[in-house]
């Protein structure tokens, strides 16, 4: 199978979704402010009428996208830095998420919100957020967290086909990762976790960039004979809990890794659900590796200290194996 860089696979998906006349892109940082951003210009040039640059009015333009979706379009909105979605919070969590339910199943809002979450390198407290946990607490939103070139392509295409408001949560530090991507059409359905690596000793459930870190860790520990199974939910809403549970059943030991702050983060929900439904299978306490409950500091060594890095994942794995 051909290999692509993550940003290439993402760009490919962005180009392909434009074939649907209903798709409008709003905002232009899908490829971040990284040097790769210039590639996005190709799409702008090809579809100038369907790529728009709104004012710095996230509340206004996210609401616009939701309304346009209600009226039949498939807008894909780039908010760039994850925390900018806070500006649009009332529209996302109180309008988009509720529309289908409140209308008794009449009004769909098939909009996609694209954000770059997490600890990105000197983003400091205001530009390093991972809003996905807060959003998961809001029923009605689908939440997607790709972690590989194949996934970013297949999940983005799936996001645009979804009839529901979808949060597409990306991480800029994934962009240069390379991996196999099948040629041609690739749509990865929501609600299908993927076992990214098989192992029998311990289950590591990870999301987004932390999947890559966990895979690295699994490589390292394999040399010591520790077989780590890495499971990636890929979407948390909907959640493929069965695949997670099957892995827990197999290993009996769980470490959960993600970049949300700890309290009420993604890892909290996964841990709680396993403690409820997989209790009998557990041989050790569940361990979470997350950002601690502190704002993300600017200074590089402090930032690294609060990041779910490989050494922290390893330490947690060892602790559940004890």
């Amino acid at each position: 199978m051909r290999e692509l860089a993550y940003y290439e696979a993402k760009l490919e998906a962005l180009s392909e979704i434009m074939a649907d006349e209903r798709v409008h892109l709003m905002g232009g940082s899908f490829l971040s402010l990284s040097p790769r951003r210039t590639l996005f210009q190709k799409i702008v040039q090809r579809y100038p009428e369907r790529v728009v640059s709104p004012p710095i009015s996230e509340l206004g333009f996210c609401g616009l996208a939701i309304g346009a979706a209600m009226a039949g379009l498939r807008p894909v909105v780039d908010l760039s830095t994850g925390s900018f979605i806070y500006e649009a919070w009332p529209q996302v969590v109180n309008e988009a998420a509720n529309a289908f339910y409140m209308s008794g199943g009449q009004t769909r809002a098939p909009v996609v919100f694209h954000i770059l979450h997490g600890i990105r390198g000197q983003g400091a407290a205001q530009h390093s957020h991972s809003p996905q946990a807060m959003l998961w607490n809001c029923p009605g939103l689908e939440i997607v967290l790709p972690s590989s070139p194949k996934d970013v392509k297949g999940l983005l295409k799936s996001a645009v086909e979804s009839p529901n408001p979808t949060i597409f949560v990306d991480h800029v530090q994934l962009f240069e990762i390379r991996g196999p991507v099948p040629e041609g059409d690739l749509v990865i359905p929501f609600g299908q976790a993927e076992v990214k690596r098989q192992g029998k000793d311990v289950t590591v459930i990870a999301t987004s960039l932390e999947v890559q870190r966990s895979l690295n860790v699994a490589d390292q520990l394999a040399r010591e004979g520790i077989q780590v199974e890495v499971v990636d939910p890929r979407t948390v809403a909907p959640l493929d809990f069965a695949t997670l549970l099957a892995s827990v059943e197999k290993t009996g030991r769980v470490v959960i890794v993600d970049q949300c702050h700890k309290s009420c983060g993604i890892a909290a929900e996964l841990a709680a659900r396993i403690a409820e439904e997989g209790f009998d299978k557990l041989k050790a306490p569940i361990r979470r590796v997350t950002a601690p409950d502190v704002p993300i500091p600017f200074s590089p060594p402090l930032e690294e200290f609060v990041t779910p890095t490989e050494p922290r994942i390893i330490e947690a794995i060892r602790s559940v194996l004890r």
Partner: protein
Amino acid sequence: MDLCRRMLLIRHFEESLIGLHDQGRFEGHYHVYIGQEATAVPALSCLGQKDFLFTTHRNHGHLLARGADPGKLFAEILGRKDGYNHGKGGTFHVAAAELGFLHTSGIVAGIIPLAVGAAYAAKARKSDQITVCLIGDGALEEGAAPESFNIASLWKLPVLFLCENNGKYGAGRAAGAAQSATMAVYPLTDLPVAYKIPARQIDGTDAGAVHAAFSEAVAKIRQGEGAQFIETQTVRWPGSETNWPAVPAPTDVSLAWDVSAVPERAREWYRSSDPVLIFIRELVEKGAATKTEIAEIDKSARQAIEQAARFALASPFPGLDEALKDVFAPR
């Protein structure tokens, strides 16, 4: 004549609803459209079938003006199965896609960006649909309003902002706070005008003036001139003075000529600010209808509402499984 019937239908609907609330048929906060009938009825009569509308907590009159079934509307507000949204939305959220009402929000200003978005979609599809954004004066205090005006203006979107300025009423404010205590922009039209959106102020008790202003604005939008803004001004209905609506005197067309049945403190409003009674008086004065004809129309509107209420009260509550349905649309 049709306008007259619709206005009376709204009035009787809302008065009847207040009765249902007082009987404990439904709970929770709600807002009625009494006193603003001469905005929605003539304004929305200027629209085409395929146009979109977005409205707020004060939506009942808008839906009825557009021809909603009062039975399904009552049923929704009572949380019944036969309501427009199977009882899941309730008074704040009545949506009726078949009438163009895609989404109704109880969040002040929540619909403004959405309406601009529907207009964006219509323009993108090169259809000639327009979108009407029905808001109260209070909505201009939220940042969503100027953000949306900016985009609607820049992108010349086919949206008509209809701002119903019903004076000093605002549920979230301290009782008695005057409008000017919460909005520095005066007149309100200065705000859209700053964003280069043409804006007009109209007397919201003058159905003819409302109709004329709307026909013109709708025509301009369909010609591609972009967003327009109209403010209609009404005086606050005395029944909304406390936190919960209370009818000072049930509306009877005879009040158009003699308000002595109305308690003293509310009399002035019914005499000089009630848009329905004003409209009726003018119809008769112009010779467009006789008092008897009006009384007939009133009677039939009243009966339609009574029947609608019976329909709603007979409708069952939705099954409990409905609670877990329609969180997500199926693919």
